[in-house]
């Protein structure tokens, strides 16, 4: 593994009985890269992501995340990555402040560090008026922005985002992507899944999974050239058409 690759995956495979959910995928992600992980529903994205974040053991193959092996060091992986998904992000019945304190504690930050991080986060996101509100009462867009910041509290090398912007309004969706750009600019690697094809264009490189395999992987520009189309949406349609 070279210094610049923070994710290195070789022939990673996951079977459930006879069903091959992830079929020998190979790729690497560089430090600070925004890596788009696309695919149709059921293509195997979530299964692949679960292996990379250390919560599902692969059937075969190799993968290193943040320098740690997914077979033998999955606990170290969990400490060195951030994760947010649309389904689970923050606790609705805790306040914004309580959520920050709670997750800071989980990630093993000191009280002093949590306090520092909290002040910084409140300032950057302009949370002054809502810091003592229950998260459940906030609009989805706010929750997602706070959730992303919380996933970065322990300054992980990589942050995994599973459909972070689904259903979010267009302005907030763009503010969210500005946060992603900023994190990437600071050297954090961003691994993101999305169904918005305009967001695929924001990524440095994009992989597209079809039936458990990575069928395409390149920069958005080169993928569009390769498939002779004008948008990532058309790349996606060409690759994933007629597959259910």
């Amino acid at each position, binding site marked *: 593994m070279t210094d610049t690759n923070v994710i290195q995956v070789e022939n990673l495979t996951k079977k459930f009985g006879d069903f091959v959910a992830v079929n020998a995928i190979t790729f690497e992600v560089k430090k600070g890269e925004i890596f788009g992980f696309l695919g149709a*529903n059921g293509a195997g994205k979530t299964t692949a992501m679960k292996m990379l974040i250390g919560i599902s053991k692969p059937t075969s193959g190799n993968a290193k995340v943040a320098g740690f092996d997914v077979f033998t060091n999955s606990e170290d992986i969990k400490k060195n990555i951030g994760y947010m998904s649309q389904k689970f992000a923050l606790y609705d019945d805790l306040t914004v402040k309580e959520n920050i304190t709670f997750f800071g504690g989980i990630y093993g930050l000191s009280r002093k560090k949590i306090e520092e991080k909290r002040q910084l986060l409140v300032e950057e996101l302009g949370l002054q008026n809502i810091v003592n509100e229950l998260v459940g009462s906030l609009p989805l867009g706010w929750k997602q922005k706070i959730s992303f910041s919380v996933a970065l509290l322990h300054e992980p090398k990589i942050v995994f985002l599973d459909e972070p912007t689904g259903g979010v309004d267009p302005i907030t969706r763009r503010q969210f992507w500005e946060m992603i750009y900023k994190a990437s600019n600071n050297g954090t690697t961003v691994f993101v899944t999305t169904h918005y094809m305009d967001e695929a264009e924001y990524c440095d490189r994009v992989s597209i999974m079809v039936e458990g395999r990575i069928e395409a992987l390149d920069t958005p520009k080169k993928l569009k050239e390769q498939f002779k189309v004008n948008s990532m949406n058309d790349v*996606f349609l060409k690759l994933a*058409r007629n597959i*259910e």
Partner: protein
Amino acid sequence: MSISVKNISKSFKDVTAVNDVSFEVKEGELFGLIGPDGAGKTTIFRILTTLLFADKGTATVANFDVIEDYKEIRNNVGYMPGRFSLYQDLTVEENLTFFATIFGTTIEENYDLIKDIYIQIEPFKKRRAGQLSGGMKQKLALSCALIHKPKVLFLDEPTTGVDPVSRKEFWEMLKRLQKKGITILVSTPYMDEAALCDRIALIQDGKILQIDDPKEIVKHFPTTIYDIKADNIYKLLVALKEYKHSYSVYPFGEFVHYTDKRDAIDTKELTLFLKDKGLNNIIIQPTETTIEDTFMELAK
């Protein structure tokens, strides 16, 4: 009018979910409610399908009043809620038979209407609904909403979380249903789907921002939008926001969409400004307004 909504408002405790909303949907029209999570779309659907009372205002569906004639409405509309609401432990066929029976009909009687859609899941008709993939669940839910041959079809975010291929197929199905004379009210957070509707209402925070034909709606945009690109998008965004003439700056696919406070931009000056900020490979060109641009401007 197939659907007529007049000054409807609805609050939950101190949250105003729907705020004085009025619109009409013509017979046979495919009408889209376009707006993000929390805009009030589901509340409107629930009021129109007689599942919720409005605090104020009146509404009719298929010429029936949503309060007085709620039973007639229930017999004449199909409703596909945002969350999968079929019986997970009944099979595909059992679910469909169940819905046909409660509406006093049979699968055979209206098979023509659902054939297109049902044929794709028929090979799995003995499978329990809970075991279906997302795309198949969606097709079953649509079949169940259609089995009693409704006059009006309500689809609440049928494509949220669905991949682009399945979304495209779903819209092709809607177009075919429309040709069979069914009025369709559909909601979506995806702005690209708005272009596929006959007319759309842009909605945010319980208020309708604008109603028009999707081709017309972009004409309400007050100024020219420019596509701007450079070698580092994050630095470009920061720089454009600092530029004294900038009005709006949004990432948009491979470009940044930029509008200026002035009527026309000074391309030379802006290029120099960006070069000064350390950016290279700068492209600045006028571009077409999209529905998403319009939405963001109205919601600003």
